Every structure is written in structure tokens, then in C-alpha cells.
């Protein structure tokens, strides 16, 4: 008995971690399980097991066009925010200049502004200029909230670089451009990749800002929100689960590749 309680005490924090992870994954498991539900229209009660939803993920009206929009917006928002954010991160991480603290403030403020304020203010700007909400306004809105996260992520990577590596390149007669291309950029690349992944997942999952600036266009989260009232088709669960496994695979492969490169 004493041994059991001692084991328990020693492993308490590990047991806690298992419980916490279970808590995090309960709704994910639920979503996955109900993607196999032979549910008909509303996926509320378990009615029987079927593969039909996975064989026909576009079976519910609009679900795949919504997904397509989300992917397109996510791709464009990631591209633009990663480029703009990385440039700012290099300016902040590698250069001394006047207006540095103003720049830092302007990067921090969008993160400290609730999404609903960002969304509402951007919409009111579009309305003033008679721009109809839709695809491009949504892309702009997503770039807006992704930029700051890209800057912070890439800047952290730049700050963790050993400056001696760049000095060594210079000592070996590389000019500034060559040093950047062959030393600095490859070293910062994992940070840029992480920032891009973060930007894509933020964009793909965003609902509040999208709801304000997308007008009649549907995205995947918007589709779920609007169909919640009348019941979400099981196809949405299929897509949600597939995204989960896809992202997990990308992250794990990325880690594996990163480790291999470190070894060689």
C-alpha cells in the first residue's frame, strides 16, 4: 500500500499530463467517431457505423466549396503574411534604426486587439470605400491578423542565431548578399516554415474576422457555424478529422526531416 502511494506521488505529474491530454482530445475523438455515423441529415445521435461519409466527403451541399475557399484564402494569407512579416522580422532583428519602438508597438497592437474589433473596423473601412465584403477583403483581413504572429515567430528564430556564424562567412570573403543567402536564410528557414504553418492554421480556423468581411462567401468554419442550427452534416466531421491527421502528419514529417538534417 505504501509503495503504491509512493509510486502515485512520484508519478503524479505524469498522470496529470495524461488526464490533461485526454481532456484536450475528447472533442477531437468525438468528432472523429461521429464522422462514421450513419446519420442522415443531422449528426446528433449515433445511428450506426458507415464508411459512406468518408467515401463521399463532398456529399453534403456546399461543404466542399466552403473548404475550397478556406484553402485558397489560407494559402494566399499565408503567402503574403509570411513575406511581409519575415521582412519586418529581419529589419527588427538585424538592423538598428529610428522608429524601432513605434514599429514594435504597431506589431504588438493587432495581437492585443480582440478579433471582433479588427473585423468590425475593417468592415466599416470597406463599407466607406464601397468595397463589397467577399474573397479579397477576407484575404486582407487574414493577412492582417497573421502578420504579427509571423513577425514574433521569425524574430525569435533570428534572435537565437549565433552571430559568429555570419561573421565566419564574412571572414571567408563572402559578401553581404552571399552571407545572407548561404548562411542566414537557411538558418532562419525553420522559423519561417513554423511561422507559415502557424499563419495557415490561424487563417484556416478563423471565424470571427471572416464572418465580418466575407459577405455571402462561405468558408469552412462559417459553414459549420451557419449549419449548426439545423444540424451539421457528418461530412464536416470527415473534413475536420482529415485536416487533423493531415496536419499531424506534416508536423511529424517536418520534425523527422529536421532531425535528419541536423544529424548529417
Amino acid at each position, binding site marked *: 500500500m505504501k509503495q503504491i502511494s509512493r509510486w502515485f506521488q512520484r508519478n503524479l*505529474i505524469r498522470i*496529470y*499530463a495524461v488526464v*490533461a*491530454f485526454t*481532456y*484536450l*482530445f475528447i*472533442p477531437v475523438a*468525438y*468528432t472523429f467517431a461521429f464522422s462514421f455515423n450513419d446519420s442522415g441529415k443531422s449528426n*446528433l445521435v449515433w445511428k450506426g457505423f458507415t464508411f459512406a461519409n468518408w467515401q463521399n466527403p463532398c456529399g453534403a451541399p456546399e461543404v466542399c466549396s466552403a473548404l475550397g475557399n478556406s484553402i485558397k484564402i489560407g494559402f494566399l494569407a499565408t503567402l503574403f503574411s509570411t513575406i*511581409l512579416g519575415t521582412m*519586418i522580422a*529581419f*529589419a527588427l532583428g538585424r*538592423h538598428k*534604426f529610428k522608429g524601432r519602438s513605434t*514599429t*514594435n508597438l*504597431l506589431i*504588438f*497592437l*493587432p*495581437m*492585443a*486587439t*480582440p*478579433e*471582433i474589433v*479588427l473585423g*468590425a*473596423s475593417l468592415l*466599416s*473601412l470597406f463599407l*466607406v470605400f464601397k468595397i463589397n465584403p467577399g474573397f479579397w477583403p477576407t484575404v*486582407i483581413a487574414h*493577412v*492582417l491578423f497573421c*502578420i504579427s504572429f509571423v*513577425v514574433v515567430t521569425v*524574430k525569435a528564430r533570428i534572435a537565437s542565431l549565433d552571430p559568429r556564424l555570419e561573421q565566419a562567412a564574412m571572414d571567408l570573403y563572402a559578401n553581404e548578399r552571399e552571407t545572407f543567402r548561404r548562411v542566414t536564410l537557411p538558418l532562419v528557414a525553420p522559423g519561417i516554415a513554423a511561422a507559415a504553418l502557424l499563419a495557415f492554421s490561424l487563417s484556416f*480556423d478563423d*471565424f*470571427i474576422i471572416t*464572418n*465580418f468581411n466575407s459577405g455571402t462567401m462561405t468558408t*469552412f468554419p462559417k459553414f*459549420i*457555424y451557419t449549419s*449548426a442550427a439545423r444540424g*451539421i452534416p457528418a461530412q464536416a466531421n470527415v473534413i*475536420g*478529422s482529415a*485536416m*487533423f491527421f493531415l*496536419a*499531424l502528419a506534416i*508536423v*511529424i514529417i517536418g520534425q523527422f526531416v529536421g532531425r535528419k538534417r541536423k544529424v548529417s
Partner: protein
Amino acid sequence: MKKISTPYLLLIPGMGFLFTFFLLPLFNLAQTSTQTAVGGGDTGQYEQTFRFQNYVDAFVENKEQFGRSFLYATIATVLALAIAYPLAYAIAFKGGKLKNLMLVLVVAPFFTSFLLRTIAWKQILGEEGFVVPTLRNLHIISQSTTLTSSAFAVVAGMTYNFLPFMTLPLYASIDRIDPRTLEASGDLYANGFTTFRKVTLPLSMPGVVAGTLLTFIPAAGDYVNAAILGSPQTKMLGNVIESRYFKIVDYPTAAALSFTLMAAILVLVTIYVRKAGTEELV
């Protein structure tokens, strides 16, 4: 012609973007917030009259939702901190080889849309789920008690949804702590609790501050959890702003509320950061 130096060339596109699509809209929102309806015009027609009374009206009319937003967000933040701290500690100090995998697992639920997960909670805790009937049969809750459509459900949903935002910065901070400092504390006869209070917690403060901000700010402006898991009695400020914009087309009130929310958050954040004593946020 004078050459523009490199940092400014790097900054101009991004800063130009933020100026056009962040500062300009905020300025425009400020203008909208003091407008009044055009007499006899269509709904949605407003003109500038510099009516600052809009702010007072909007606040008085919605002070309950205001209070709720800050109350719910505070409780959710405290709960998330309590849940995430031991988890981050476990990953940082007991993760071993599994550290990276565990970090991935913290973020992984993100990839299933947060709306799907919130609706999953609604169904798990709803009348058709298995939790409520079980608790009723065991007489833990009364026959008429429901778990969804309540303040409890809204706060629980927010706590759950923002948990990764809390865990990651906490982990980053705790992981930087040299385990030898904890050993040294033990060598100096501090017990586990004293070591935590005097060594671990102070050293992890930057993570605590970053995590609470990343949780509190989105939670205070959130309306999705309240819309899915709540009832009309749990409406938050976000719900009001949303319906003013889309259902009532009352832009000035929505703008005034948005500004008040943002100002309140910025004031609270500034006080909090000063008190917590960490200024290196970005």
C-alpha cells in the same frame, strides 16, 4: 537622391499594410462611433454629428454584457492557467524524449476546427449526450439541471478553446529554467512548495504573463462560445457587437462598443503588465 537604408526598405511594405488595414480602419471606426442616424433616411444611413453621448448610451444599455465579458474571460483565464501550468511543467521537466511529440499534441486539437470541437462539447454535455443522464442517474445533479445553455458551459468552452494559447508560452518559459536552480533550492532545505513559490514561479513569470494575455484578450472579445454553449442570459459584449452590426445595422453603437472594449482591454493589460513587471512582450 538619398538612398533609403535597408531596414526601411524591409519595413515599408508590411508597415504600409498595417497602416492601411489596421490604423486607418480604427480611425474610421472612431469616426463611426460618434455618428447619428440621418433623420427619415433608410436604416444604415448615418452622418457625423460628434455625438459622444453614443458611448454613454452604449455602455449603460449593455453594462451587463460588459460585466459578463470581463467576468467570464477572467474566470476562463484563471482556470486555463491552473490547468495549463502543471501540464507545461510536465512537458518541460518530465517530457524527456517525448517532449516534441507532447508539444505537437498540445497544438494538434487546433487542426480540427475549433467550431467543430465546441459543437462536440455541446453534444457531449447536451441532453442527447451520455454525461447528463449518467450524472442524473447517480443523483450528482438534479433531474432538471442542464449543463449546456449556461454560464458554466460558456466559461468551460472558453477555458478549453484557449488552453493551447496558455500552455505554449508557459512551456517556453518553464523550459528555460535550469533544473539545477531547483536542486539548489532543495539543497538549501526548501520543500517542494517553497521551491515552487520562490524559484519556479518567479522564473516562469514571462510565460504566465504572455499566456494570460493570449487567453484573456481573445476570451474577452469572444462571442462564439456564448452563441453555441450559452443562452440569452449569458450573452457577452461580442454577441451584442455582432448583432448590432448584422441584425440591427446600428453601426455607431457597434463602433462605440468595440472602442470601449478595446480601451478597457488595453488599460487592463497595461496595469497587469506593469504589476507583473515584465515589459519584454514582443
